[in-house]
């Protein structure tokens, strides 16, 4: 640069960047934006394939007929699997959600930062990472070996998978409840349990519900534990103590068959399952957005 009497203003525009730095920056920015596209493509492809192939077999009879007992035969429906999915997931939710909320109450209202509470919190996080197949084996050795394969065993396995998710999401929601509410209730002479049940719980219930619905959606799509512990049936089974079947299990069985008719059934079952999961997720989002605004 030439020396001037008054210093020339430094060029701070983009043009002053060296070519190498400019190009590197461009490439990096582009790569970062592309990453989202990489995730978007499989999502779009999966959704498109499931919907288009699923609609080919979708009909009223597909949703209401019994399952054919030989995979190479055409036709048949998924009603027993739909019923099984709803029954087993519903039973699992009935077990896991109250227990999970209770656990979260302990963590947030009683345990707080005590060593035991911190251990439980970390272990709940760890438990969300336990593979679902291990939960299936656990229920197999404790329940199935003692009794028999049943819908209830499947529900127990799913409940074990849901429990830590419900605990952690509910605890987050309890933490958002302002302490003033608790203090006000306690100051009015309400006991701890009454404060928790009538003040804290209602304030957090929308968040808890949406967390629980997400846990239900995850559990409804679980396959591995169900394959191990519920056996399989071809007719609707309302008794939870008897063997049962679910949509994920039907998808798994039909997907690995070499017969085109079986593969078609798998696509149909996948569409049905995704519809159920999506419905649960949407309900969760609706509840969360609807009530979270009203709270404060």
């Amino acid at each position, binding site marked *: 640069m030439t020396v001037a009497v008054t210093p020339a203003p430094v060029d701070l525009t983009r043009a002053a960047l060296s070519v190498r730095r400019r190009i590197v920056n461009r490439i990096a920015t582009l790569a970062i934006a592309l*990453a989202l596209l*990489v*995730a978007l493509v499989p999502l779009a492809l999966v959704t498109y394939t499931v919907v288009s192939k699923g609609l080919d077999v979708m009909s009223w009879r597909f949703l209401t007929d019994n399952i054919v007992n030989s995979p190479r035969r055409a036709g048949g429906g998924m009603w027993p699997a739909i019923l099984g999915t709803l029954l087993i997931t519903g039973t699992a939710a009935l077990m896991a959600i109250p227990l999970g909320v209770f656990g979260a109450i302990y963590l947030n209202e009683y345990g707080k930062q005590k060593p035991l509470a911190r251990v*439980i919190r970390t272990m709940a996080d760890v*438990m969300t990472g336990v593979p679902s197949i291990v939960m299936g084996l656990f229920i197999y050795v*404790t329940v199935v070996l003692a009794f028999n394969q049943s819908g209830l065993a499947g529900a127990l396995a799913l409940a074990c998978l849901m429990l830590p998710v419900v605990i952690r999401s509910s605890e987050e929601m309890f933490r958002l409840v302002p302490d003033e509410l608790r203090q006000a209730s306690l100051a009015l002479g309400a006991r*701890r349990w009454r404060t928790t049940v009538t003040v804290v719980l209602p304030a957090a219930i929308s968040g808890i519900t949406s967390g629980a619905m997400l846990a239900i959606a995850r559990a409804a*799509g679980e396959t591995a534990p169900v394959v191990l512990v519920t056996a399989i049936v071809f007719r609707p089974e309302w008794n939870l103590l008897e063997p049962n079947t679910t949509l994920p299990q039907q998808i798994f069985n039909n997907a690995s068959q070499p017969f085109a008719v079986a593969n078609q059934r798998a696509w149909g079952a996948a569409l049905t399952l*995704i519809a159920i999961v*999506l419905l649960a997720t949407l309900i969760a989002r609706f509840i969360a957005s609807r009530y979270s605004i009203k709270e404060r």
Partner: protein
Amino acid sequence: MTDTRISLTTKGGGVRADRLFRFSALAAGLLVLAILALILVTTSREAWPVFADEGLSFLTSKTWDPASNEFGALAFVYGTVIVSLISLLIAVPVSLGIALFLTELAPRRLRAPAVTVIDLLAAIPSVVFGLWGILVVAPALYKLYQALHDTLGGVPVIGSLFGTPVGGGRSFMTAGIILAIMIIPIITSISREVFATVPSSDKQAAYALGATRWEMIKGAVFPHSFGGLVGAVMLGLGRAMGETIAVALTIGAATQITPNLFAGGNAMPSVIVLEFSESTGEWTAALIGLGVFLFVITVLVNVLARLVVNRAEIRMKGAVA
């Protein structure tokens, strides 16, 4: 006149209800610890015959022959390692990219839809990914594998990775790719949280020194979030090692150890679900033993990951203050 005095002591009804409530809450919390302990105890007991019979060779022998009661799971350990590695190699850069996009790059109105994409990806059941993998992706990739084998197969050393593809395309590679799609959401969401903790003063300082956006990310964001990112990757690894159904459908179900990424293999969780219904006696015990091993590893990985993430978070909070 009526007596308006009220009792403010802890006596009277309700103490018992309070105690009962507290006790039930504690019991529900302890249930988590109880279940984890029970998993370890009950499954190990059931798998004991095989541990006693095979000893260490359960993990070091590659002979898995149920007919002659020989159970060496090395091939499945190998499959799990290879498939997890492939999936991490694909998923980590993509996830970090998405997380950076969300925290540093995306305009505000693009953020919510982008998060929805990731949430939806996480909401698709793994069996549906498996179905898509076996019927659509594997046959499509088979042609690509063939082309890669033809061009790279002859190259020394790395050529062995690109061996003859197995018919139908169900292989380590296919399973790894499907798995990568499935672990992107978890790595993305954790690294997003980690990136969000980088203090904006650091970023502005980098810009003030004349850094471009990429130089700012390299110099301010990455060093600050390194610990948290390690944790995020480990959580992804934990998920990848335990994923069962999608891998079972796409990996090809063969018991072999080969460097050929386009060959069929098997992983620990998938061999359990594929062989469980036909197994008896010691075979069942061996499969349960695989489950025990898988449980111990995933718990270790998860505990470590949580410790790393927590420590990183504490350090970051310290830096902000």
